[in-house]
């Protein structure tokens, strides 16, 4: 019996003699082999807990506290003369930069306007020419006697403008006659 047990029992006898006589062994039951089993379970959990902890990305203790001073030291060693120099930007230089920026901006705007206006004209002309050529080609290939008579009736062309070319049967297979406009038709 150690001193703590003795002291506790003595105290208990003085204030509660009936309670002091009762057995202190716990009446509660524990499964057989529980304490051996639970020790292994706890050790497994400790192992998992420790290894999960280690697998996380870690940095040495106090790394971030030292980082700033370490970087400054390295920079100072590599550039001992320049470390204390501070770059000064004069106000007049700032104004000059503003003018230069404005000039560059104007230049860009001018080039952009010039480029876009010229480009638009070129595209329009090309499109017109292409359309007219295609149109006249279409008319030449597809005009027939009825069309020519209609044009003459409406005084859009004169009979003198028309040259009737008669092809021999040797030269043409399917069609016997083609009317060809010698002059361009102006609508």
């Amino acid at each position, binding site marked *: 019996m150690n001193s703590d047990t003795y002291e506790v029992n003595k105290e208990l006898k003085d204030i509660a003699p009936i309670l002091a006589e009762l057995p202190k062994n716990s009446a509660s*039951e524990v499964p057989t082999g529980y304490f051996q089993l639970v020790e292994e379970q706890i050790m497994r959990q400790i192992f998992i807990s420790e290894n999960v902890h280690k697998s996380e990305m870690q940095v040495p203790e106090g790394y971030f506290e030292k980082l700033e001073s370490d970087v400054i030291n390295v920079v100072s060693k590599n550039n001992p003369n320049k470390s204390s120099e501070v770059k000064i930007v004069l106000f007049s230089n700032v104004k000059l930069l503003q003018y230069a920026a404005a000039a560059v901006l104007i230049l860009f705007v001018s080039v952009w306007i010039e480029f876009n206006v010229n480009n638009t004209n070129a595209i329009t002309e090309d499109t017109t020419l292409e359309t007219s050529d295609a149109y006249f080609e279409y008319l030449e290939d597809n005009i027939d006697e009825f069309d020519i008579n209609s044009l003459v009736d409406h005084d859009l062309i004169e009979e003198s403008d028309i040259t009737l070319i008669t092809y021999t049967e040797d030269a043409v297979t399917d069609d016997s006659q083609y009317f060809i406009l010698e002059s361009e038709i102006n609508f």
Partner: protein
Amino acid sequence: MIFPEDENILNLIISYDKRNEGFRYLVAKYKEKLYWHIRRMVENHEDADDVLQNTFLKVVKNIEGFQRQSSLFTWLYRIATNESINFLNAKKNKYQESTDVSALQNVTSYESVNETIVLQSLASAIKTLPDKQKLVFNLRYYDELPYQDIADITDTSVGALKASYHLAVKKIEEHIKKNV
């Protein structure tokens, strides 16, 4: 089995190369004491098992921060007590139902009918105590701890603990006298 002193166990744990050996000693040395301390608080074996394992995991996670201002033993008891209280608070309603069953299981394991009746009376008397008084009673009566250690575990003054323990013991004694 003879276990190393607490100081040596702590040194093994912080040495890293023998860390596992240190934890093995720690668990082996304190598993039963902590189990019974927890069991008396939560009463049910399954709950005690859960709380015991959580207690050791918490110890492992916080061992680096242990300042050695108190003894390792009282620090472990303190963590076990807090874990038990948290567990009881989280499962208060369920706990009330299960304690009645476990109390019956406890007393039926005794052959002596008289002893069974007395122990049943003791168990029911302990249940009537307020939580703090019950904790102090268990630590003093069952674990036989000095008042100073109980004070460290419960964050209470020694004077208040003595008063609390004496009150608890008197209540239990009266309860047994009336019921046996």
